[in-house]
């Protein structure tokens, strides 16, 4: 059944190639429309299209999604973006300037359009941002606008909003708008990059039917939706002919949803899907199966362990430091991740610009003897200690390893405790029903600011994972670092922030993340920045 289909495809491809050659060049053919049901297998491969394994998307509205990033970065273009060298470039923005780091002027490039032909204007941004920031809409990425003046009125912590629009946004002309921030922030241009989808623009057409837009978003990016997304089916995007940014190298992307990532892996093995993400713990087998076609990307995420602030046993900083010193990160990395993750020596991912590697010092180094004596000095830990983590996400092995090492090296009773699912995991932390918790933060933009603010300030989205850590001295140091006039000064500032936090040692930094991808032999190279693949600019083989 399948063999002939494959043959058919090969013949068809050969025919197309011959035709193209005989015509002497021409660009991408536009004939790869709908192949219809029951068509040849891997129909997505026609022409220069690729298929990418993803998990079922949730929403396709940029201000309201949490698991559709791969699709959104194809359909939308952000104001700024990281290039291959991890430097910030302007994409939809022509410039982003500020005198005082409080009021920012954003100028857009002229001639950009949404996929329905509507020009991308300053109003497209201001309207979209206002919509995202309006509390009753309950869009999940609203927090990305928290530092814009007026957010406390459109999205108050409690009670009804007193404004429908952010006071800090002003349209100057068709292509210019200004953003007034609550405090000075030199990192603002980084916040405008691709990870913060809440800051993408939306066309006027979207507001006519937001439910329809959620299934069939109209963006300003290199690809447009081929048809509305339907649950359980591929999401297909095709190159947008009038895209004003750098032209993509491929004509079409089939985002194929998988329920089980292991199935995506097997499909990649059979060459049925071109790019698939692989769980960290599968790295050894993936290296064996895929060799060169296993790609390991430095990612801006960090793993750590947090403590329940209400548990008196951990209130002495020496106890927390002793726990950290009793974990052999290198051994766990070898045994479980085949060395693919990065043992932490700071609070941020080592690839984060200016990350002060080594700032954690001896407390992030494995020293069981010192750990044991430090714990004894602090009076030890009585009773059972449980490390809570969400079950069913392939984390079982690594948490068993943490528990084993703490148990053996500190001679205390430690076990790894899986929660049944995310709901139970977050609920147990919210209600204080835990001892030690799994923590992770994936930074949304390439600045230490995101990780440090989100985890170590009271207003941060990830603050619950660090036991609600906050310290006025840290807040002040952060504000100073955010306002630092140059990048180098900000690095100095964030180092001081990390030193101050680590003096309190609220968490055990464990690993910086690497994301793993496997590819079919149709892919020559993946281009990526900050751990995310630039699907539009994938290099095809041959």
């Amino acid at each position, binding site marked *: 059944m399948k063999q002939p*289909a494959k043959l058919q495809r090969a013949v068809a491809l050969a025919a197309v190639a011959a035709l193209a050659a005989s015509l002497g060049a021409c660009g991408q053919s536009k004939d790869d429309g709908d192949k219809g049901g029951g068509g*040849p297998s891997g129909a997505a491969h026609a022409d220069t299209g690729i298929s990418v394994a993803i998990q*079922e998307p949730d929403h396709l509205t940029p201000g309201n999604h*949490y698991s559709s990033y791969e699709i959104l970065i194809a359909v939308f273009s952000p104001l700024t973006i990281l290039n291959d060298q991890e430097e910030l470039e302007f994409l939809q923005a022509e410039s982003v300037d500020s005198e005082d780091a409080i009021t920012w002027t954003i100028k857009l490039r002229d001639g950009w359009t949404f996929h329905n032909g509507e020009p991308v204007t300053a109003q497209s941004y201001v309207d979209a941002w206002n919509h995202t920031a309006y509390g009753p809409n*309950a869009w999940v990425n609203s927090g990305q606008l928290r530092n814009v003046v007026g957010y406390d009125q459109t999205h108050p912590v409690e009670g009804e909003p007193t404004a429908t629009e952010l006071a800090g946004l002003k349209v100057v002309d068709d292509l210019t708008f200004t953003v007034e921030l609550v405090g000075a922030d030199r990192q603002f241009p980084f916040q405008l990059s691709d990870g913060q989808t809440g800051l993408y623009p939306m066309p006027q057409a979207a507001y006519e039917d937001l439910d329809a837009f959620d299934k069939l978003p109209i963006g300003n990016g290199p690809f447009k939706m081929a048809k509305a997304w339907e649950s359980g089916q591929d999401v297909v995007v095709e190159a947008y002919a009038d895209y004003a940014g750098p032209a993509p190298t491929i004509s079409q992307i089939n985002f194929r949803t998988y*329920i089980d990532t292991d199935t995506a892996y097997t499909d990649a093995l059979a060459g049925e899907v071109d790019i698939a993400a692989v769980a960290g713990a599968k790295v050894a087998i993936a290296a064996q199966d895929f060799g060169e076609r296993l790609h390991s990307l430095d990612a801006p995420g960090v793993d750590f362990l947090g403590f329940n602030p209400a548990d008196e046993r951990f209130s002495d900083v020496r106890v927390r430091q002793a726990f950290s010193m009793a974990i052999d990160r290198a051994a766990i990395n070898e045994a479980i991740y085949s060395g693919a993750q990065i043992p932490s020596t700071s609070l941020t991912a080592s690839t984060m610009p200016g990350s002060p590697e080594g700032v954690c010092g001896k407390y992030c180094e494995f020293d069981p003897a010192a750990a044991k004596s430090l714990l004894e000095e602090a009076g030890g830990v009585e009773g059972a200690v449980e490390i809570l983590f969400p079950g069913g996400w392939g984390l079982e092995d690594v948490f068993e390893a943490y528990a084993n090492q703490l148990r053996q090296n500190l001679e205390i009773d430690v076990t790894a405790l899986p929660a049944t699912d995310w709901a139970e*995991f977050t609920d147990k932390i919210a209600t204080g029903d835990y001892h030690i918790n799994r923590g992770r933060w994936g930074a949304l933009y390439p600045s230490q600011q995101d990780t440090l603010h989100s985890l170590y300030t009271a207003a941060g989205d990830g603050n619950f994972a660090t036991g609600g850590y906050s310290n006025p001295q840290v807040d002040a140091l952060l504000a100073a670092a955010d306002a630092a006039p140059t990048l180098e000064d900000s690095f100095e500032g964030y180092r001081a922030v990390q030193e101050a936090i680590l003096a309190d040692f609220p968490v055990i930094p464990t690993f910086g993340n690497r994301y793993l991808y496997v590819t079919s032999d149709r892919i020559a190279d993946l281009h990526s920045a900050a751990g995310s693949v630039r699907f539009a600019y994938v290099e095809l083989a041959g």
Partner: protein
Amino acid sequence: MRTAAKAVQRLAGLALVFLGVTFVIYLAVFALPGDPIRALAGDKPLEASTVAALRLKYNLDLPIWEQYWLYLGGLVKGDLGADFKGRPVLELMASRWPVTIALALTAWALEIVIGLAIGIVQALRKGTVIDHGLLALTVLASCVPVFVLGVVSQQVFGVKLDWLPVAGVRDGWPASYVLPAGVIAVFGLSAVSRLMRGAMVESLSADYVRAARARGFGPGRVVGVHALRNSLIPAATYLATDLGYLLGGTVIIEGIFNLPGVGNLLFEAIRTHEGPTVVGVSTALIVIFLITSVLVDAIHLGLDPRLRRA
């Protein structure tokens, strides 16, 4: 008059069963540990104000009976509610049922054809190496965990031999369904073939078959008509019940083979505490079980004329 009253009584009973079952399911979803809204965004938790707005939107702050009342109100109007992603449950089910039905029917057909054939061959070759060999084979195959069988068959037929797609439904029927349906059928095979073998062995030594032979009917007619029809009852009963079970969606198989069917929908919905989806799918399943039990009765009547008189 009497039949009308009886029908009304029967319908009222069904309505009560329906209400009771849906309420219990609603209650069960509600009782799952953890706050569904808080877990919506994985490890990027939502702001308190966003959580509050979402809880309001999905009526999660109301007491359980009031939520259920609202759900029933929608149901009367043909509205099965929507999940947390804003997709109508009716639409979700409509897109998932065709996959599960195609999978179930394919698996069922394989069970019937192969299962009955194995049982008949065993009965005709009773006590021989073929009989024992087939028995050992079917029992062994059904003892392998479904997960293992699924993954191994993917590796062999999808990756190594490259005959069939590893996963997904984009090659349509039959290519995309043969492998998962085959794996499911393996588990039904041993039951179907054993039931068939037992009944067939019994019929073959029954008086009426001996009489038929004595009258000089050929072996084809004796086995195919006289023995077969009477031997079908146990296997047919099993198969009819099994169809109901298969139509419920096989969560593990749909997961391994990435088939977007109802089994998956239900699994995801339970994982994310999507009350309306769980109740909607389960209700549909209850209806299917009711229909298949009627089907079982009908098959009995068709195969066993004695029941028609009673």
